């Protein structure tokens, strides 16, 4: 869902960059406060894994494909939406600068969408879904699906503001494709949470106890 430069007029791209920078600053504050010696390698490996899995485009119907975003996973494992902002920002910088994946003027909006909105929806989706199942895996699946779906709808609204997509058709097609891609997001999020939780039960914070403050 990386928005290329051509999809958004420069003045709007600048506004999104401004909002993104605020959240990037808050994510750095999160890193400064929360980072302990044993969390540093976890953050690094999680960031590397999310970069790698984003390169795996899985085919979906209608001649389209989708890949994992990873924001919900980062927020769930590290227990804060700001973890997602921190990790997705790094991933998007490397993708945009080195590989031309996602624009540079639109990097702000991509950080806002995938890092901030993806991270917050993933985090609160996980918190809200956990009591329904009393089980972290379906909660992780729902958080993953919802995070991707909401980001897709927000992107459709941004495309409408940019004059690139008409609102209704944009919401419809983005919703249709990403409703399916969300199944990939939810499944990999739940699988990764399972692997991490099984290998190191001590790492994952209990959903009812997760902190929010940056």
């Amino acid at each position: 869902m990386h928005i290329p430069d051509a999809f958004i007029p420069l003045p709007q791209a600048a506004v999104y960059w401004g909002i993104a920078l605020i959240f990037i600053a808050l994510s750095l504050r999160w890193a400064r406060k929360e980072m302990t010696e044993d969390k540093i390698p976890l953050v690094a490996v999680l960031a590397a894994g999310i970069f790698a899995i984003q390169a795996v485009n899985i085919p979906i119907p209608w001649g389209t494909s989708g890949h994992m975003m990873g924001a919900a996973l980062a927020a769930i494992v590290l227990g804060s939406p700001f973890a997602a902002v921190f990790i997705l920002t790094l991933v998007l910088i490397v993708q945009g600068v080195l590989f031309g994946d996602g624009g540079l003027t639109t990097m702000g909006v991509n950080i806002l969408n995938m890092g901030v909105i993806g991270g917050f929806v993933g985090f609160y989706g996980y918190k809200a879904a956990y009591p329904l199942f009393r089980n972290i895996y379906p909660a992780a699946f729902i958080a993953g699906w919802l995070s991707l779906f909401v980001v897709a709808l927000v992107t459709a609204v941004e495309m409408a503001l940019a004059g690139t997509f008409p609102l209704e058709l944009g919401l419809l097609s983005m919703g249709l494709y990403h409703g399916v891609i969300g199944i990939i997001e939810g499944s990999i999020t739940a699988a990764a949470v399972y692997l991490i939780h099984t290998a190191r039960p001590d790492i994952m914070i209990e959903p009812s106890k997760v902190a929010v403050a940056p």
Partner: protein
Amino acid sequence: MNRRTFIFAGLAMALVIAAVAPFVASSNPDGLEGAFYGIFGAKEIQGSELDENRAAAAEEEVTGITGNTFSLDSPFPDYSIGGLAKFGEAAAVIIGTILVLAIAYGLTRIVRRPE
């Protein structure tokens, strides 16, 4: 699983995913591109045939709408390394993965409050 094993197992998984990604990944347009081509008439929203000529025209058309002509010449566009095809792409994704790892590790170390 002790901490060291856990981290190295995670890193090994990331690198394996990076290495196989270009060989298994679908080259179909992603969800946003698919929606874009559908809306600009290069494919049916629920069809799978992409009209390459219409797709190219759509890309010019959208630049006209937004007026954003900015474009960065990235060193490895679309994860390609000159003339190396899929192995080049695998190398590019591996390089990216290691770079993200190094930046994340370095940055968290720098911003972290000393004890």
